[in-house]
């Protein structure tokens, strides 16, 4: 446990010694603010209730670009710099390494989302704040991004250049999204079509976002996200273990 925690702490610290954290944070706060401002302006003009969960849904869409930036460095850079060898000749297991690194991305995600709480507070003070929608929206945003991060950890584990890792992660997430978009055009009446349709929909990390933003909190999507995360982290552990194969 202390080993995983030490790995987690080091990994989290790396985000804050490089300019990356501050660039992402500044950029995101600007975009979050714009989305929020645009949302409130529209709501006022149309005299409609302002749905904060829609802001959260928009933010979750942005994570397609942010998640690869967070994860691309993790394992690719260890390989690139050769520190993977120093790391794995210490008495640490592959699982501890993957968990420590993944935990650091989650902590960094929480750090990125923290400033948006200011928006929620503002709405609570000057408008009507739908707590159930917002809480479910946050959970949906968090879980969706957490699964994107797990995909990113996996891609970083198979790459030895962080730029490649970032681009490939982005491409994979984008393809998953696009195919989900086109899945509706697949003819679901044939057996093959139905199977393809359900597989594509299953692999869409955003499939449950709509339910969350409507305030629906169900255990099924949570279990789905958790299994997606476990699946990709498991794959990453296996990739790191590859060098032990004879």
């Amino acid at each position, binding site marked *: 446990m202390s*080993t995983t925690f*030490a790995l987690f702490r080091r990994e989290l610290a790396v985000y804050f010694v490089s300019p990356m954290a501050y660039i992402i944070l500044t950029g995101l706060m600007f975009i979050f603010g714009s989305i929020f401002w645009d949302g409130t302006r529209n709501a006022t003009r149309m005299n409609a209730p302002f749905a904060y969960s829609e802001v959260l849904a928009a933010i979750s869409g942005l994570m397609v670009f942010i998640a690869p930036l967070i994860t691309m460095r993790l394992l690719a850079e260890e390989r690139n*710099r*050769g520190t993977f*060898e*120093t790391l794995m*000749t*210490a008495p640490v297991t592959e699982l501890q390494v993957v968990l420590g690194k993944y935990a650091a991305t989650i902590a960094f995600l929480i750090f990125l989302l923290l400033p948006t709480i200011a928006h929620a507070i503002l709405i609570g003070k000057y408008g009507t704040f739908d707590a159930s929608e917002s809480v479910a929206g946050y959970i949906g945003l968090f879980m969706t991004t957490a699964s994107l991060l797990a995909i990113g950890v996996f891609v970083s584990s198979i790459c030895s250049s962080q730029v490649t890792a970032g681009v490939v992660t982005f491409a994979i997430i984008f393809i998953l999204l696009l195919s989900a978009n086109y899945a509706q055009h697949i003819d679901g009446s044939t057996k093959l079509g139905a199977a393809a349709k359900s597989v594509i929909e299953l692999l869409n990390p955003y499939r449950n976002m709509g339910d969350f933003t409507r305030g629906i909190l169900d255990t099924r999507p949570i279990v789905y996200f958790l299994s997606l995360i476990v699946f990709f982290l498991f794959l990453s552990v296996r990739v790191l273990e590859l*060098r032990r194969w004879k």
Partner: protein
Amino acid sequence: MIEVRNLTKTYPGTTALNDVSFSISKGQVVGFLGPNGAGKSTTMRILSGFIPPTTGSATVAGFDVVRDSLEVRRRVGYLPENNPLYTEMRVAEYLWFRATIRKVPRARRAASVDSALGRCGLVDVRDRIVGHLSKGFRQRVGVADAIVHDPEIVILDEPTIGLDPNQIRHIRKVIRELGQERTVILSTHILSEVEKMCNRVLIINRGKLVTDGTPAEILKRATTGRIRLDITGESVGVREALQRISGVENVVEVEQDGDRSYLIQAKDASKVMPEIIRRASEAGWNVLEIGPERLSLEDAFFELTDRTGPVPDLLHATGEPGSPT
């Protein structure tokens, strides 16, 4: 301390290690010597538990490097080739992190880090960022990292590569001190390094163990079988006189800076040598030196690892055929 049996490592298309066996006992400082690509790093990676062998086995401190990899890694301190470090961390912070993941108990961690800093002469730079340090200091950080958890065995892959003479001298001093209480394995392709630091040398070439012995032994074995006679000043007819001695088969004369060397091929050098000395004093040659012709360690190394020719088996040079690879 370390038992290596029939170790073989193949990568697709190449054999990095081919049936290597040796054992190292406690307290030895062992030098792995060989040209680049000979299999030194592969051996060290296997011993430090980073990669498994293809066939064969290795045990370190009684633990198998594959089955009990974690136990092995607890007991080994390893400096990989090229000394990879987390360059964004501060020196003491880095060592603290490494001590933590190497299971140094929290109560002892600060003392362990301080001790490693002290041994490697890093006290003054403890709060500097690793990436801002000179190469010599970075190398010291790598060595400090390898000893911070007080390991029984220290494995250093090319610890002095790319350093200037002063830095090399300091790293050597650190390694010699380590060798007084621990088993140390280091690899290098610089021979003088082995002479200065090691009490045992394993020469490895193209994946095979070629020679095993002390640096002095290897030097002694690296004789050519010829007698070398160095003479200074004007001497006439030396060559002819030498050739007349019974048992002498061939004499080669080499002139260098006014001095002359004669390389004498004889059936039995130990019988011919006293005879040469007698002749020399009778004829009044100004003899500087006489003795069996020795290869310098550099030449021995070249002979042992020459990639073009067969590998001479100097260990069993007594009539047995060599083992060309």
